[in-house]
């Protein structure tokens, strides 16, 4: 009763069944990755530089709208006054323009405190210095388009006068480094400069406006309590931990997740049907053989185990190939989905998570075993003498 050898009695049929299981497994895997992948990816992105709280205008999430917060320095001081807060950085987003010889290029500008920022990582050159009013950081696409590298000078403008079509403020800044901005979509043209520089360009320095703050609270145990204290201290602002933001993000994605679960369940159902059908056909072909085994003293348990092992081997073979196919498919689909405009390039829709993968693998193997159980029980319990008589005629 060798399950592998039994499976290869009909190699073409077994091969087709394995191919079917492979496809359904790939679909199941992709649905498992998809169902929580974007949330996990979003959470990783938000926690990427260790800042676990965001402060934004009331009723919004950071950069959800163009709304800004006035009096940033005082608010920052209030935030830093909390004993659990180890760092707090302001962040201002503004539409900017860079002058090229023949045209103006639209850019997205970030105003930051380089000592407390959570939006970029340095790729080349150096970071902005403290109170660096003459430096700027470029994203790689911006550097390419502006044909500028470390040490070059770029001219930034903001607030075009709609009637005169001329910029109100213009700053010449030296490129300190090339960075990748964590929240940029693919190909986004972005720059970062010291907060007052961007505030000047956006003409909001007088009111000391920012779009959001990133806050780092020491220790997970302190996080909830410190967030509550900040909410009490700054009731006019929206204060969310990354966990809160992920929860809100999850609410927005509820239909997306439900769709994943439904498609995943369908894949699992198809796998069950495939394995059960194949095992039922196989067992029906071997009823005489099974009756003989029972006649010579092979127990029902041994027969059931043997057939269930065939189901499990089939599922394991198809499942293993399906994992490979699923990973390849996930990468391909991820490339398509993350190319959507406005979506951070660092977001991934298909994120492997060991626990989910383990559960999926376990469910799949159990499915294979259980799918073989029904035909196995039928075969083991069929009357020996009647089956032998029927087989002989």
């Amino acid at each position: 009763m060798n399950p592998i050898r039994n499976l290869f009695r009909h190699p073409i049929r077994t091969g087709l069944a394995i191919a079917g299981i492979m496809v359904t497994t790939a679909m199941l895997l992709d649905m498992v990755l998809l169902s929580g992948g974007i949330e996990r990816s979003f959470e990783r992105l938000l926690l990427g530089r260790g800042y676990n709280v965001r402060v934004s205008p009331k009723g919004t999430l950071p950069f959800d709208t163009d709304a800004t917060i006035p009096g940033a320095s005082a608010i920052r001081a209030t935030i830093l006054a909390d004993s659990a807060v180890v760092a707090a950085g302001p962040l201002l987003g503004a539409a900017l323009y860079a002058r090229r010889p023949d045209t103006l290029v639209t850019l997205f500008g970030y105003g930051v405190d380089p000592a407390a920022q959570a939006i970029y990582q340095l790729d080349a050159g150096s970071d902005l210095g403290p109170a660096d009013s003459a430096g700027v950081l470029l994203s790689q696409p911006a550097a390419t388009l502006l044909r500028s590298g470390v040490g070059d000078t770029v001219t930034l403008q903001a607030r075009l006068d709609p009637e005169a079509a001329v910029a109100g403020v213009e700053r010449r800044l030296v490129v300190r480094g090339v960075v990748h901005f964590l929240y940029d979509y693919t190909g986004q043209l972005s720059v970062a400069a010291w907060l007052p520089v961007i505030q000047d360009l956006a003409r909001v320095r007088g009111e000391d406006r920012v779009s959001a703050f990133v806050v780092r609270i020491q220790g997970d145990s302190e996080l909830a309590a410190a967030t509550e204290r900040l909410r009490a201290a700054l009731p006019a602002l929206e204060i969310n931990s990354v966990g809160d933001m992920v929860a809100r993000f999850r609410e927005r994605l509820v239909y997306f997740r439900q769709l994943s679960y439904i498609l995943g369940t369908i894949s699992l159902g198809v796998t069950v049907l495939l394995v059960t059908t194949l095992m039922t056909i196989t067992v029906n072909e071997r009823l005489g053989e099974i009756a003989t085994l029972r006649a010579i003293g092979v127990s029902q348990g041994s027969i059931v185990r043997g057939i269930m092992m065939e189901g499990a081997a089939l599922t394991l073979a198809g499942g293993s190939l399906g994992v490979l196919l699923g990973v390849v498919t996930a990468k391909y689909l991820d490339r398509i989905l993350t190319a959507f405009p406005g979506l951070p390039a660092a977001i991934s829709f298909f994120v492997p998570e060991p626990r989910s993968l383990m559960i999926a693998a376990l469910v799949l193997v159990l499915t294979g075993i259980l799918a073989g159980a029904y035909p196995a029980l039928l075969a083991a319990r069929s009357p020996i003498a009647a089956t032998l008589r029927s087989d002989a005629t």
Partner: protein
Amino acid sequence: MSRRGQLPGASPILIARELCKDYPMHGETVHALRGVSLEIRPGEYVAIAGPSGCGKSTLLQLLGGIDTPTSGTVTLNGAALERLDDRALTRLRLTKVGFVFQRFHLLPVLSAAENVELPMAEAGMARADRQARATELLGYVGLAGRSGHRATQLSGGEMQRVALARALANRPAVILADEPTGELDATTGRGILDLFRQLSLDGVTLVVVTHDERLAAEAGRVVHMLDGRIVSDTA
């Protein structure tokens, strides 16, 4: 084979009392057996003969515990089969009965030796012991050089020899064979008959169902059946 000599005076190893077996068929009841009683002693070579449909195969299945009688009892090696549950009955078939079927019923994916080892593995025998026993048995049935061949690579006669070796694997109290030459040509069948004779000489208890008069003539005792009844029992 280590056992030798018939023990006709010993207590019966197999006792059937007033066996009746009815089958429903097309809305009617077929009376396959109508009160059959039989005793078989250790070392006996018994042929159950008769025309097709006389109930001889049904009797063999009841004697071997793979079917249950409508009424009557079977006692095998001191165990009343009707009192055994499926697990105990399966164990009894594994250890006390060796079956040989007309169509051999070997597992096609296993080699000859693996087919012979199967009942021993099920009985929990150690791998080395069962391999040695399989080699011994295949040598006994004349297939020493074919142990590694798959069942599908063997001829009909060779398959039946492997089936016989498999039946002998756990040193059963009785071998029950149902038309063992039914699928074989005359020459090949002759070889199987020789093997049965050798088994009998070695003291193995044999009950063979056949409509082959040559095979019946080989047996020391011939039980003739007709319409579900024993009509003669001659030694």
